[in-house]
């Protein structure tokens, strides 16, 4: 209270339109700084890595987009989401149904409803339609989820995942059931996915620093205080949910366009836990955390997979350890929850950490 007397003596808080210097520009730059390591890794792989690693990198970049999408809702709203793969799936199946050439569809889904077996949109139009579908499902489910908080919202997100998965499995005329849906035009390569990842990282950062993001983070920390300063938490949760879904949908679209073949199990629990572990490990409060988690766990899991099939170290043959990567995922979630619940990156974005570091160094 040492400074309280100041307020009594100085007159009114006079308006000086100063504020921080161009906050949007700062977030934009911050987002780009965060995307820099991703871009560097991608370019190195493009330049030097053999084809096998290119394929791995593609999958990792898709995971990156999913995890950044997950961060938008989970990190700002502080509500666990177990349903985001539903949107990845809707994006992927959306373009599969719309963009696959009719010749292929005659083989795979000849009985598709609405005459979908006979038409094919160009990849870009198909992608936009798929995103629209994601948006519609997100708006409808978001209406329910944004009214809830905590565990209730999480359970509804899980229910959404199961509903969407069941539709993929059982509407065989349209989605081909649990068989692989093949023949999707392969129009996206590593450069395209890298560009998308950078855009998505910047977008997530802009959202986090926007007035919506700030208000949503405030309401996650104290719902009562946020309401008392006029924050409409429901509306903000809905906005974050839809943006998160669209980013995840984009990841699905890109995956379908580079892999050419998809199946429902790709967009189910395996992906949910993998991406969740990545976000928790990196730290869900920041976009930097999402990026860090994906990099660390992608590399780590690849290493574990190489041990899984049995290796010999110094002449000693290790046995096959099938399922080791699944165990490792679980262990990562448990250990980070127990010892570092805020993740590797904690509260600060990469650019903020760098700024602090240089300020201290000076």
């Amino acid at each position, binding site marked *: *209270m*040492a*400074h*309280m*007397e*100041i*307020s*009594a003596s*100085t*007159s*009114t*808080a*006079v*308006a*000086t*339109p*100063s*504020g921080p210097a161009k906050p949007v520009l700062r977030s934009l730059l911050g987002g780009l700084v965060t995307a820099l390591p991703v871009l560097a890794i991608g370019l190195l792989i493009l330049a030097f890595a053999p084809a096998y690693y290119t394929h791995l990198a593609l999958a990792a970049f898709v995971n990156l987009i999913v995890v950044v999408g997950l961060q938008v809702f989970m990190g700002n709203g502080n509500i666990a989401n177990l349903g985001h793969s539903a949107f990845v799936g809707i994006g992927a199946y959306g373009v599969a149904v719309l963009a696959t050439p009719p010749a292929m569809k005659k083989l795979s889904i000849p009985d598709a409803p609405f005459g979908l077996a006979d038409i094919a949109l160009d990849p870009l139009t198909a992608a936009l339609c798929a995103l629209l579908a994601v948006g519609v499902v997100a708006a409808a489910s978001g209406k329910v989820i944004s009214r809830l908080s905590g565990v209730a919202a999480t359970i509804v997100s899980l229910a959404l995942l199961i509903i969407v998965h069941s539709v993929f499995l059982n509407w065989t005329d349209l989605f081909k059931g649990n068989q692989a849906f093949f023949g999707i035009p392969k129009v996206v390569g590593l450069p395209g996915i890298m560009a998308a990842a950078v855009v998505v990282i910047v977008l997530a950062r802009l959202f986090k620093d926007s*007035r919506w993001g*700030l*208000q949503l*983070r*405030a309401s996650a*920390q*104290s719902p*009562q*205080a*946020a*309401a*008392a*300063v*006029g*924050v*409409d938490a429901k509306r903000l949760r809905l906005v974050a949910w839809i943006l998160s879904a669209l980013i995840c949908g984009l990841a699905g679209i890109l995956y379908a366009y580079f892999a050419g073949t998809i199946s429902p199990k790709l967009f189910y629990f395996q992906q949910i836990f993998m991406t969740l572990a990545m976000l928790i490990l990196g730290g869900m*409060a920041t976009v930097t955390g999402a990026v860090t988690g994906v990099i660390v766990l992608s590399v780590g899991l690849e290493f574990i997979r190489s041990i899984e099939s049995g290796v010999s170290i110094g002449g000693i043959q290790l046995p096959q350890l099938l399922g080791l990567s699944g165990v490792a995922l679980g262990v990562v979630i448990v250990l980070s929850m127990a010892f570092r619940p805020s993740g590797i990156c904690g*509260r600060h974005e990469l650019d903020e950490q760098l700024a602090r570091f240089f300020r201290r160094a000076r």
Partner: protein
Amino acid sequence: MLSVEAVSKTFGGVQALREASLACAAGEILGLIGPNGAGKSTLVNAISGTLRPERGSITLDGRDLTGRGAEHCARAGVARTFQNIRLFKDLTVRQNVEVAYITCRATRAKQAAGIDIDALLAQYGLDDLADVPAGTLPYGSQRRLEIARALALGPSLLMLDEPAAGLNEGESEALAMAIEGIRRDVGCATIVIDHDLRFINRLCDRLCVMDQGEVIASGETLAVWRDPRVIEVYVGQAQPA
């Protein structure tokens, strides 16, 4: 001008508010006092929209706020602090004020009236701590931040729920001067709940005394203390000799 008319609220059979009425004009500092459980915080919660009263009406500057929800009331100009401090702990001090500042579109108009985030921080001695997470502030600074955040709404009504709790004498004197500064600079209606009667008597133009959910007396500060029902609540009934 806040006008509360005959507001009632029950919690599981307990009558927390019994036809409570009060009024507070712009530029006035009203003390809301009474023993623990008298219904002071319940009344503040009803006015700020956190609770929906069963009967009665609440209007601010002629606009009906009865049962409209906390967000709506805040946007209509009702600002408050909490008895147990509720800050956005992981956000910085500046962001705490910013959230309140950006929420109300009406603040655009109030910007012209002289509300500014940096000036508010400076005024409450928080400008050096602007980039620190609010949760790491010492207790006194947290209390000041809650007031600065509430003022960033550009309120027509400010309600302070036990602002002097846990402050020493010098600090509560500084707080009283700050509240008088708010009256002078912002000119809003101010309601102060507190148990520190010296603080209340020094600060408030009028008092409103509650007991068991009822407003038992209200009027000018000195006059209220002569009311026999108030004396009974605070001192006890005069024993026949």
